[in-house]
C-alpha cells in the first residue's frame, strides 16, 4: 500500500511536470485555468492512478516479462488472505479479489447513499435550505455516478468473481493478474469522482448522463467524471473478457452449456453486453474530455458540434448498461429461489434463452431515452416497439420464477429468500412503469419528471440492490465460513422494503402531477409528499446500518457455517466454507443439471473421490449408501 501511494504521487508529479515543461517550452502560459482547461490537473488525473497501479504491483510480472528479465515464478504464496491486511495488497486469488470488490463497492454504496440523504434533506421542504443549487446538482450527479459505476456494476462483478469459478469447478479465473488489475482500477475511479468535490468549481454537476453541451462547458469537476469513467469502464471490460474466457474454456468436465447454473448464464450474457457496449461510453467521455481540454469540436453547439450525437452514443452504452445492472441479479434470484424452494427452475432452457434475448434486444432500444430530444422523429416508433418487446423475455423470467415456487417446499427463514421474493414484487412494479415509459405518447408527458426517478429506483433499488442483498446473504456463509444473524437480516429486509416503497411510490404521483427531476427547489404543492419521501428515505438509509452491523459482527463472531447450510446443489457448496485456497483438491465432474431438487438420486456434480458412486437419475430404488453426502 505505501508503495502504491508513492506510485500515485510519482505518477501525478510526472504528469504535472510533463505539462508544465511542455507548456514552458512551447512558450504558453504555464497554468491554463480557463473554465474547462487545467491540463496541469487533468494529466496527473491519468498518470497518478497509473502510478498507483504500477506501485501496487499490477504490472510487475508483465513488465519483467516484456523487458526480458526473468519472471518470478508464481509460487502462489500470496494466494488467500490470512488477515485483513492482505486485502490491501495486490492479490491474484479470485476469492480475495471478490471480497475486495464487495467491500470496496459497499464503501461507495455508503458514500453514494450519504449523497442521496443530503439530496433528500434538501428536498424535504420547498425552497433552498441546506445546500446551494450548484452543490445540489453535484450531489445528485455524484450519487448516480457512484451508485452506477462504483456500486451496482462492480458489486455484481465481485459476487461473480467469488462464486463463478467455484460454480463451474475452476481453480481460478482465466487471467488472474488481469483480474487483480481490473479490481485496482476501481478505487482509482472512486478517487477521481470524489476528488472532483475539491477542485475549483466543485463536483461534476451535469448529471450522471453528462449531456453535452452542458458538460462540455462545465467546470473542472466534469473532467474528473470523464476520467473516472475511463477507469471504471476499463475495469468492467477487462473483467467481462475474463468472465467470457473463464466461462467458455474453464468449466469442469461434463458441464455442458445446458448444465450451467443460471448465474453463469447471466454473467455470460452480461459480459457479452459489457465488452461490446462499454467502449462506447469510454469513447464518448473521451470525446467530451477532448472538447473540454483540446478544443476539439464533437458536441459544442456554438461551433457547429452535433449535440444529439452525444445522447445517441451515450445511450447506446447506457441502455445496455441497465441490463448489465440487472442480468447478474436475475442469475442470483434463480439460484436463491430454486435452493430455498427446493425445486428445479421451471423452464430452465427458456430462462437461459430469455437472457440471450434480452442481450440482443437491449442493443436496439437506446433511443427510447430520447423520445423528446428532438431526434429524427421517424426513429421513435421502431424503438418503441423493440422497447415494449423486451418486456417479453423479462416477463418469461418472472413467470418462470413464480412457477418454480409452485408445488415447492418454500423456506422463508433465510433473509436471501425474503429479498428474492421482495424483488419479484418491486421489480414487477418497475417493469410496469417501464412499459408505460416505453410508449411514446406517455413518455412525452413523463420523461424527465419524478415518474422517471421512481421508475429507475424501482428497477435499480427494487431490482438490482434487492438481488445484491439476496446474493450476499445467500453466499455469506460460503465466503466467510460463518452464519449471519437471521433476526437482524429480517429486520433489514422489512425496513428496507418499507423504506423503499415509502420513498419511491409517491414519486410516481408527484412526477405525473408536474414535478421535474433534478431540481433543487420545487413548487409548494409538492411539499407534503416530498417530506414523506424524505422521511422514508432516511428509514431506508438507516436500515442499511443494520446490514453493515450484521455482516461485520457475524464475520467475526458468527456461528460456524457448514459446507452447505442451504442444502444447495451447485458446485460451490461441495467445498468447505470458506473454500480451500485453490478451490478444489480434485476437479469435480458434472453429471447432471444444476437444480435437480426432488429427483431421486440425481446430482449436479461429483468429486473424483466419489467416482463409481455416480447415481443414475431415473433409478428410483438406488441403494441408500450410493448417494453419499447428498441429501
Amino acid at each position, binding site marked *: 500500500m505505501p508503495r502504491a501511494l508513492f506510485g500515485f504521487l510519482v505518477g501525478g508529479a510526472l504528469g504535472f511536470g510533463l505539462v508544465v515543461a511542455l507548456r514552458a517550452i512551447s512558450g504558453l502560459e504555464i497554468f491554463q485555468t480557463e473554465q474547462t482547461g487545467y491540463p496541469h490537473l487533468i494529466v496527473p488525473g491519468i498518470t497518478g492512478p497509473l502510478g498507483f497501479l504500477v506501485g501496487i504491483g499490477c504490472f510487475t510480472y508483465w513488465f519483467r516479462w516484456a523487458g526480458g528479465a526473468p519472471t518470478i515464478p508464481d509460487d502462489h504464496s500470496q494466494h488467500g488472505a490470512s488477515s485483513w491486511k492482505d486485502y490491501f495488497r495486490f492479490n491474484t486469488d479470485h476469492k480475495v479479489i471478490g471480497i475486495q470488490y464487495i467491500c470496496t463497492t459497499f464503501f461507495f454504496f455508503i458514500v453514494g447513499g450519504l449523497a442521496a440523504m443530503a439530496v433528500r434533506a434538501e428536498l424535504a421542504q420547498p425552497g433552498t435550505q441546506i445546500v*446551494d443549487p*450548484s452543490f445540489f446538482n453535484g450531489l445528485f450527479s455524484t450519487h448516480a455516478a457512484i451508485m452506477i459505476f462504483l456500486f451496482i456494476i462492480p458489486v455484481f462483478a465481485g459476487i461473480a468473481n467469488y462464486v463463478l469459478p467455484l460454480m463451474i469447478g475452476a481453480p481460478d479465473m482465466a487471467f488472474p493478474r488481469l483480474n487483480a488489475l481490473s479490481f485496482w482500477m476501481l478505487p482509482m475511479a472512486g478517487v477521481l469522482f470524489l476528488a472532483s468535490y475539491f477542485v475549483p468549481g466543485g463536483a461534476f*454537476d451535469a448529471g450522471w448522463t453528462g*449531456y453535452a453541451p*452542458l458538460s462540455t*462547458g462545465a467546470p473542472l469537476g466534469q473532467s474528473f467524471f470523464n476520467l473516472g469513467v475511463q477507469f471504471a469502464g476499463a475495469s468492467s471490460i477487462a473483467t467481462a473478457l475474463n468472465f467470457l474466457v473463464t466461462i467458455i474454456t474453464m468449466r469442469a468436465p461434463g458441464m455442458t452449456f445446458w448444465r450451467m447454473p443460471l448465474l453463469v448464464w447471466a454473467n455470460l450474457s452480461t459480459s457479452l453486453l459489457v465488452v461490446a457496449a462499454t467502449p462506447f461510453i469510454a469513447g464518448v467521455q473521451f470525446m467530451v474530455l477532448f472538447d473540454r481540454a483540446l478544443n476539439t469540436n464533437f458536441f459544442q*453547439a*456554438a*461551433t*457547429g*458540434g452535433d*449535440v*444529439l450525437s452525444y445522447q445517441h452514443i451515450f445511450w447506446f452504452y447506457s441502455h445496455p448498461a441497465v441490463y448489465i445492472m440487472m442480468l447478474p441479479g436475475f442469475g442470483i434470484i434463480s439460484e436463491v429461489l430454486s435452493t430455498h424452494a*427446493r*425445486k*428445479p427452475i*421451471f423452464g*430452465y*432452457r*427458456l430462462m437461459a434463452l430469455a437472457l440471450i434475448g434480452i442481450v440482443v434486444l437491449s442493443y436496439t432500444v437506446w433511443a427510447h431515452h430520447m423520445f*423528446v430530444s*428532438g*431526434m429524427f422523429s421517424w426513429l*421513435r*416508433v421502431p424503438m*418503441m416497439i423493440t422497447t*415494449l418487446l423486451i*418486456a*417479453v423475455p423479462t416477463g*418469461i423470467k418472472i413467470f418462470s420464477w*413464480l*412457477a418454480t*415456487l409452485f*408445488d415447492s417446499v*418454500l*423456506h*422463508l427463514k433465510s433473509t436471501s429468500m425474503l429479498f428474492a*421474493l421482495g424483488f*419479484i*414484487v418491486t421489480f*414487477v412494479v418497475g417493469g*410496469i412503469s417501464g*412499459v*408505460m415509459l416505453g*410508449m411514446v*405518447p*406517455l413518455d412525452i408527458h413523463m420523461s*424527465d419528471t419524478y415518474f422517471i426517478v421512481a421508475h429507475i429506483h424501482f428497477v435499480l433499488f427494487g431490482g438490482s440492490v434487492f438481488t445484491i442483498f439476496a446474493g450476499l446473504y445467500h453466499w455469506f456463509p460460503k465466503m466467510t465460513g460463518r452464519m449471519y444473524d437471521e433476526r437482524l437480516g429480517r429486520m433489514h429486509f422489512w425496513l428496507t422494503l418499507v423504506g423503499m416503497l415509502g420513498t419511491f411510490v409517491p414519486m410516481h404521483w408527484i412526477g*405525473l*402531477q*408536474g414535478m*421535474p*427531476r*433534478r431540481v*433543487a*427547489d*420545487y413548487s409548494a404543492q409538492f411539499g407534503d409528499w416530498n417530506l414523506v419521501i424524505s422521511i422514508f428515505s432516511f428509514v431506508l438509509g438507516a436500515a442499511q446500518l443494520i446490514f453493515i452491523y450484521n455482516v461485520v459482527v457475524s464475520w467475526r463472531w458468527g456461528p460456524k457455517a457448514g459446507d452447505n447450510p442451504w*442444502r444447495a446443489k451447485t458446485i460451490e457448496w461441495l467445498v468447505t466454507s470458506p473454500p480451500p485456497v485453490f478451490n478444489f483438491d480434485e476437479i469435480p465432474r458434472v453429471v447432471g443439471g444444476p437444480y435437480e*431438487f*426432488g429427483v431421486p438420486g440425481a446430482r449436479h456434480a461429483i468429486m473424483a473421490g466419489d467416482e463409481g458412486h455416480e447415481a443414475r437419475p431415473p433409478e428410483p430404488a438406488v441403494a441408500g449408501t450410493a448417494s453419499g453426502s447428498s441429501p
Partner: protein
Amino acid sequence: MNRGTYVRLFGLMILLTVVMSVIMLIPDWNGIQGSAEADNIDTLLDIMIVVSCFVFSVVVVMLGYCIHAFRAKPGDESDGKPIHGNTKLEIAWTVIPTIIVLFGGAYSWIVLDDIEAEAANQLPIEVTAQQFKWTFDYPEQDVTSDELHVPVDVQLEVNLTALDVLHSFWVPEWRIKRDLVPIAEGNPTDVDNQFVVTPNRVGTYSLICTELCGFGHSTMQAKVVVHTQEDFDAWVAEQEPAEGEPPVEAGGES
C-alpha cells in the same frame, strides 16, 4: 392441486384486478387537462393502468398463494416436486405478452399520430431558451414577450431554439414536452425542433424547464396564460407599444 383451486386463483386475480383498477382510476393522475391532446394521452394511461393492475394481480396472487400454500413446515427437509417445465405454458407466457405489448405499441402509435396531426390554421410561436430564461416571439403579431400568451382552441406551431445548452419545454397540463437543442447558426441539422399543441382550457399555467441546464435549472419557469380569442387580441394590442422590450405587467388581464 385440483381444478377448483385454479378456478379460485383465477377468480382472485380478476377480483384483485377489478378492485385495484377501480381504486387506481379514481385519482386524476396527470392533473388538469389543458389541451386537445391531453384526453387521448390520459385514455392511454388509463388503459395501461388497467392492464398493469392485471399483470400485478397475476404476480401477487401467485406469489401470495405459493407462500401461503407451500410454506415448509418446521423441520421439513423434503424437496418440492421435480417439475422441469411445461412447454405449452411456456409458449403461452411468451406469446400472450407479445400480443399484449404489440397491441399497446399499435395503440400508442395511433395516439402519437393523433396528437401530432397538423390543423389547417396554426399560430406560429418562436420559443427561445437560454440559461435561465424563456422568450416568446409571435412572428405574425410582431410581438415579443417573456410570458407565453396564447388563444384557446387554436393549434400552436411551436418552433424551438436554444442559445446555450439543452433545455426542455413542458407544460404539464398540456402533456407536451420537447427538448430545445442548441444549433450553430447556419449549421444544417436533422433536429426536430417543432411541435404542435392545441390548448383548450382558459387559465394560467407554468412552463417548466425539464432538462438539466445548470444551477438555475429549478427556477427556469415561465408563466403561461391561455386566453379567449378576444382577450388574446387585446393582449396583443397592448404589447405593440412595448415591442422589443419584455413587458412586465402583461399577465394581469387574463
